[in-house]
């Protein structure tokens, strides 16, 4: 019958259980590639500033003098460009989404990298050439 086209699907769905999940009690489905949020390791950063130059939404700010690295989570679009461009592996993408916040937060890190005495020029060369 023309008006009962949906019946087969309805009956199947009745037996099949719910298709949705009770988020946030049950976490959202993520895969290994999911772009959730960017994590920063201040110990390996050599302040080459490639990440802040590549960021399409100006979410990353770097103060070379003060050795401060900042990320504005509300500007970040989790595109992953900074992660790909970082030559020292200081940035990584985690699959979990960043938890909701109620006020504007800028995460601030102090870069702990100490420039070695020898070879003194190498990090500067890499940042300029890349």
């Amino acid at each position, binding site marked *: 019958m023309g008006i009962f086209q*949906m019946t087969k699907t*309805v009956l199947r769905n009745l037996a099949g259980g719910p298709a949705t999940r009770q988020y946030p009690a049950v976490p959202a489905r993520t895969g290994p*590639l*999911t*772009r959730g949020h960017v994590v920063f390791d201040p110990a390996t950063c050599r302040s080459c500033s490639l990440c802040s130059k590549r960021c399409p939404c100006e979410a990353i700010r770097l103060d070379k003098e003060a050795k401060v690295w900042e990320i504005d989570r509300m500007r970040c679009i989790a*595109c992953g460009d900074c992660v790909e461009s970082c030559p020292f592996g200081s940035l990584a993408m985690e699959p979990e989404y960043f938890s909701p916040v109620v006020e504007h937060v800028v995460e601030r890190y102090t870069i702990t990298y100490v420039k070695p005495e020898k070879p003194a020029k190498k990090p500067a060369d890499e940042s300029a050439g890349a």
Partner: protein
Amino acid sequence: MPERIIVPFGPQHPVLPEPIHLDLVLEDETVVEAVPSIGYIHRGLERLIEKREYTEYVYVAERICGICSFMHALCYSQGIEEIMKIEVPDRAHYLRTIWSECSRLHSHLLWLGLFADSMGFENLFMRSWQLRESVLDVLEDTTGGRVIQGTCKVGGVRRDIGAEKLAEMHRALDPFEAQCRDLGDVFLNDETVKYRLQGLGVISKDEAYALGAAGPTARGSGVAMDHRETGYAAYGDLGFKPVVETAGDCYARCAVRVKEVYASIDLIRRAISEMPEGSLDVKVKGAPDGEYFSRVEQPRGEVVHYLRGNGTKHLARARIRTPTLANIPPLVKMLPGAQLADVPVVVLSIDPCISCTER
């Protein structure tokens, strides 16, 4: 002569996913004229091209629309590649085609759900979105994003799909197609759906062509116009015939989209089985100098990115014409004669995407 009254429709309306405003001039319950107005969510993304480097703008182009995001990135990248004479590897073309068709699948399934919702068929709405979720899962597994894929870049693609995942996708296509055909049968054969849609919002082939209709709106009226026929990305290798209906009413536009879902599944199946090996991207050096009119077939019709570079890292001008803008004049032509209660169905039948339109 009955008294004429004006009823505002939108910008906030339960059936509208995004804000568009129509002033409906009514005689009793019948629409005699519709006056559209847009401009509620202009974001100035075209101007942003002067502030972002041409390789970074891909991320902005992707965010023009939340549904056909991959195709905006593809259209923009193709334009830059043509200006800079970059040869994209074959594997990148095939991957771009697969992700484009996945985007089309999830866009059409989303639209079918919204359309069912607009005619009050809640059950069908939920079933469409349930099927859409499985496409989004595939997109998330292969690209890392459900709706903003972020895999297209100037010169190729950023990610590969492994042989194992491709085989898994290929295996999943048959049961998925069976489910889509069950869903499509309801849209195409159910008497209540037919009763609601047939003969509603009719636009003839000549009118559709003259008013510049694009995509399923044009193809529902018998204008066999699909940009995939020109063979960009891997469509040239795969071969493609546009889906055309001739009635020109809401039912025909719905039928075009249902059949395009089947066509997309078929394209993905063939793209996976013919996937060539090779590199994913080529290194891009220099800056674009020149102009190009890049075109791609989106779920809603043909999108145009006009790009002009001046030899610097920042482009001088971008102009983006999206299919919904082209479909507003046909919509204004479709509405007169419809009952007020049918207006939501007619408006949704062009698949309005206002974020795209206003950029």
